[in-house]
């Protein structure tokens, strides 16, 4: 049976690839031109950088659900956790620990910059969160941060804070009339507030994805 499946998948794969290549080569030009629309509305979006404008304002709905997806993935990992004792700390390398202690402030600074830069050049909450998470992983590998087991109240609050802020803003705006319709004057401020909350929570969530995993049956 396995040989049959293997050859079937290969045949289907090749024919699909060929068809797609042909399709792409004879593709007509697109009927709708969104870049023009984005440029037009960039002024009211509250940020200068088009990608951040799309991410946080024009398609802010996608981003809200996307954070929910990330939070959900973490929840599911927690359900798998037996909450057993964390693995014993690896042999500590003094050079690594020294480097980690000196790198930490730099990591936090970079994350802050990325968060702020997001408004007018590539950057934003996700990139800042990723950097923070990387910092946490680095500390754990260096033995300065124990692996996490079942999160207690404060950690849980940290994990969901960003998402709750985003949700609160969305609900408040919906109360006024339309979901996620930032009043032009407040758009920039609201986006920054949401991005700051997200940076903290995404940092904790992404770090959690790694630290909760290592916490068990290494």
């Amino acid at each position: 049976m396995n040989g049959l499946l293997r050859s079937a998948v290969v045949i289907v794969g090749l024919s699909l690839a060929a068809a797609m290549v042909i399709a792409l080569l004879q593709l007509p030009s697109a009927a709708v031109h969104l870049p023009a629309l984005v440029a037009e509305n960039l002024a009211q979006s509250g940020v200068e950088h088009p990608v951040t404008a799309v991410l946080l304002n024009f398609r802010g709905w996608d981003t809200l659900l996307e954070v929910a997806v990330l939070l959900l993935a973490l929840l599911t990992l927690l359900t798998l956790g037996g909450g057993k004792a964390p693995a014993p700390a690896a042999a500590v390398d003094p050079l690594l620990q020294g480097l980690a202690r000196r790198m930490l402030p730099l990591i936090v600074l970079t994350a802050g910059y990325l968060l702020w830069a997001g408004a007018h050049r590539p950057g934003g909450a996700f990139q800042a969160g990723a950097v923070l998470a990387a910092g946490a992983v680095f500390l754990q590998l260096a033995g300065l941060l124990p692996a996490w087991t079942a999160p207690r109240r404060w950690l849980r609050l940290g994990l969901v804070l960003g998402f709750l802020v985003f949700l609160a803003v969305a609900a408040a705006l919906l109360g006024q009339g339309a979901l996620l319709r930032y009043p032009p004057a407040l758009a920039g401020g609201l986006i920054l507030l949401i991005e700051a909350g997200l940076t903290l929570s995404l940092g904790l969530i992404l770090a959690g994805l790694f630290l909760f995993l290592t916490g068990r049956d290494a």
Partner: protein
Amino acid sequence: MSTGLLYALAGVLLFVLGAAGAVLLAHLMRKVLAFNVMGSGAFLVLVGLAQREDVIDPVPQAMVLTGIVVAVAATALALGLARAFHARTGRTGLTEEARRD
């Protein structure tokens, strides 16, 4: 044959390779990696096609950002499940003959 279209074609090949790998490979780790290759292929096509007439379109880039985050979440979940499965059964694959490797 603009560069955007070239990336899109590469994306197509990556997609098909990743999909075939995800179906055929038995080892869970390889399946998750293949799934990520597949995702990257789709993202390449998404951005590549949008720039095939050398006009930078921010919307697909935002979509790709969202897609990457979703892919990270899915990969983390897959790895978590694979570790839990390995911890309970000692096997690295779901199918029977996966017991060997």
